[in-house]
């Protein structure tokens, strides 16, 4: 057994180490020491981020291709860790006041789901991917049900775990079909033998995709989202909507472009339909929401639709756009969720009407919320504008005019409902608005980070350029290069003309010629 393999996994190992440290701390620290749990967790996570950032390596494979890493993967992991860190910062008041006993669990459960997401990004094999996705889902269900004395939280937990299990069951079924069709579960091997004309493989792919679509909460795989976000503690909702979605989106891109690249003609129409449905239906739902967390849930569904635009392009620009979009979305959505959490704590309920006149009493909070919403809506000079523009540009470059048009028209609808919140905070008169209050230091640090990010992540082009550079290089890495090109095969090709799935690739070349 070659232990050098493990060194390649240093991102994950550092995280595991972090989890173990926290576990030990939780076990052995005194009650007064535990009060420092949040700072300790945050500092350690920050250290882990720095470690990952400074010791990031080149593209590499380990365990016979089961695990792959690349600067891109590392970057996404860093982004996810940053997201998690921000969530931790926002969680202080909630976790310390409501969960005196269980606060340790919150951190290492979250981190273990983060570990699962790391593996999702880095897996080179369906088994590892599957375990990763489960690791990212099952403890998350515990987190959703974390406020276990609250029926809503418990209900949300049940909905989440059952639907997640259902989706992963379907997904697993898809993997089994793919296995039957290809005889391998390694990404690279499978990519070589996939045959777009084979119906069973296509079916396998679609069943498999369910798991990711579920995590991305694309319509019609989305219905759980609103209920779960509403019922879950706001910080968990934030984590769910941001970090979890980021992992799902990036692995969606990596798997569909790199593994199912040959099947592009089969999955692109599906993605097309899902994008249109997600954006439109989620927008329609969001319009009528009264609860801020439900509202943000629908908004995040529609944002997921935009993210998938990056996948459907299947180009390096698309990948860049996608990651950048996710990053910017992360900042804005975390700010929105964080503020939702704070306001919910202060006012005791999460209705949008509770925001009426908020600006009068809590101007800074309102302004940050507004900036976050503007960023989500894609209004310059906030970062959201840039991310939308670039992802649309990538899609247009590939000729998805109608799709982009639909997406653009939907941005108008989305602007409408984002403005509803802005209106509540700034315009709607309210005789007794929420009284002025002061958030805890950690939250304020998080909000400052989000604020700076929302304002600067777009204008400072270095971020986008850097992401672009990294994803370009990863995208054009030799492993992937051969599979991305679209293979023009008539879908209607009868299945029996393809005699042997193993010779599918060669057959393809013939058809191409």
């Amino acid at each position, binding site marked *: 057994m070659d232990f050098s393999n493990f060194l390649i996994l240093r991102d994950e190992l550092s995280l595991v180490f972090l989890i173990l440290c926290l576990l030990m701390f939780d076990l052995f620290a005194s009650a007064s020491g535990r009060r420092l749990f949040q700072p300790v967790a945050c500092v350690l996570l920050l250290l882990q981020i720095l470690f990952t950032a400074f010791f990031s390596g080149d593209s590499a494979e380990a365990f016979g291709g089961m695990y792959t890493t690349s600067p891109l993967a590392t970057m996404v992991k860093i982004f996810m860790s940053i997201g998690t860190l921000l969530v931790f910062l926002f969680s202080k008041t909630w976790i310390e006041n409501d969960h005196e006993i269980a606060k340790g669990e919150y951190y290492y459960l979250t981190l273990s789901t983060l570990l699962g997401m790391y593996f999702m990004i880095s897996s080179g094999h369906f088994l590892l991917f599957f375990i990763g996705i489960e690791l990212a889902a099952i403890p998350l269900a515990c987190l959703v049900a974390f406020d276990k004395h609250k029926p809503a939280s418990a209900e949300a937990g*049940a909905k989440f775990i059952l639907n997640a299990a259902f989706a992963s069951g379907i997904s697993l079924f898809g993997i089994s079909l793919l296995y039957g069709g290809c005889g391998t*579960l390694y990404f690279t091997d499978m990519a070589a033998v996939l045959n777009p004309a084979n119906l069973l493989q296509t079916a396998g792919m679609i069943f498999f995709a369910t798991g990711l679509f579920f995590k991305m909460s694309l319509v019609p795989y989305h219905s759980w989202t609103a209920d779960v976000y*509403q019922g879950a503690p706001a910080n968990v909702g934030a984590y769910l909507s941001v970090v979890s979605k980021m992992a799902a989106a990036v692995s969606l891109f990596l798997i569909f472009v790199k593994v199912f690249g040959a099947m592009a003609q089969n999955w692109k129409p599906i993605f097309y339909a899902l994008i249109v449905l997600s954006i439109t239906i989620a927008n329609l739902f969001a319009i009528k929401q009264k609860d801020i967390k439900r509202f943000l849930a629908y908004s995040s569904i529609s944002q997921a639709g935009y993210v998938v635009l990056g996948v459907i392009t299947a180009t390096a620009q698309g990948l860049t756009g996608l990651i950048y979009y996710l990053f910017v979305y992360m900042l804005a959505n975390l700010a929105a969720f964080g503020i939702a959490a704070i306001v919910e704590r202060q006012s005791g309920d999460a209705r949008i009407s509770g925001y009426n006149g908020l600006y009068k009493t809590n101007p800074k909070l309102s302004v940050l919320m507004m900036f976050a919403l503007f960023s989500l809506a894609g209004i310059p000079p906030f970062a959201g504008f840039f991310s939308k523009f670039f992802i649309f540009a990538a899609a247009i470059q590939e000729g998805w005019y109608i799709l982009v048009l639909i997406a653009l028209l939907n941005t108008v609808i989305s602007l409408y409902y984002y403005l509803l919140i802005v209106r509540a905070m700034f315009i709607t008169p309210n005789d007794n608005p929420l009284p002025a209050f002061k958030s805890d230091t950690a939250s304020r640090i998080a909000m400052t980070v989000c604020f700076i990010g929302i304002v600067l992540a777009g204008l400072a082009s270095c971020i986008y350029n850097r992401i672009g550079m990294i994803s370009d290089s990863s995208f054009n890495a030799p492993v992937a290069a051969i599979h991305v090109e679209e293979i023009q095969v008539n879908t209607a090709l009868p299945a029996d003309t393809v005699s042997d799935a193993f010779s599918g690739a060669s057959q393809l070349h013939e058809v191409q010629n």
Partner: protein
Amino acid sequence: MEPIISMEYYLIVSSIMFFAGIYGFITRRNLIAILISIELVLTSTDINFAVFNRFLFPHQLEGMFFSLFSIGVSAAETAVAIAIIINIYRNIKNVEVRNIKKLKD
């Protein structure tokens, strides 16, 4: 060489099991019953993996191992799900699906 039982039969059986699970998931009215349905879904895919491995790719063990891990994952999943269901029971004193419809539009 012709196998004793052709592979398709296994697969059909597992498909029936899979869709029975799905049907159960959608129609059962009790959370634990739903969980039982999920077990069917997961087990059916395990059969698929094992069958494919045995019939098509007997020189390696990927399918079998996938089944193995899948059993483990589903066990963990079930455990957590049952914990959550019990928590629901604590909260609302029953585990009927219709009673967890508080969160909706």
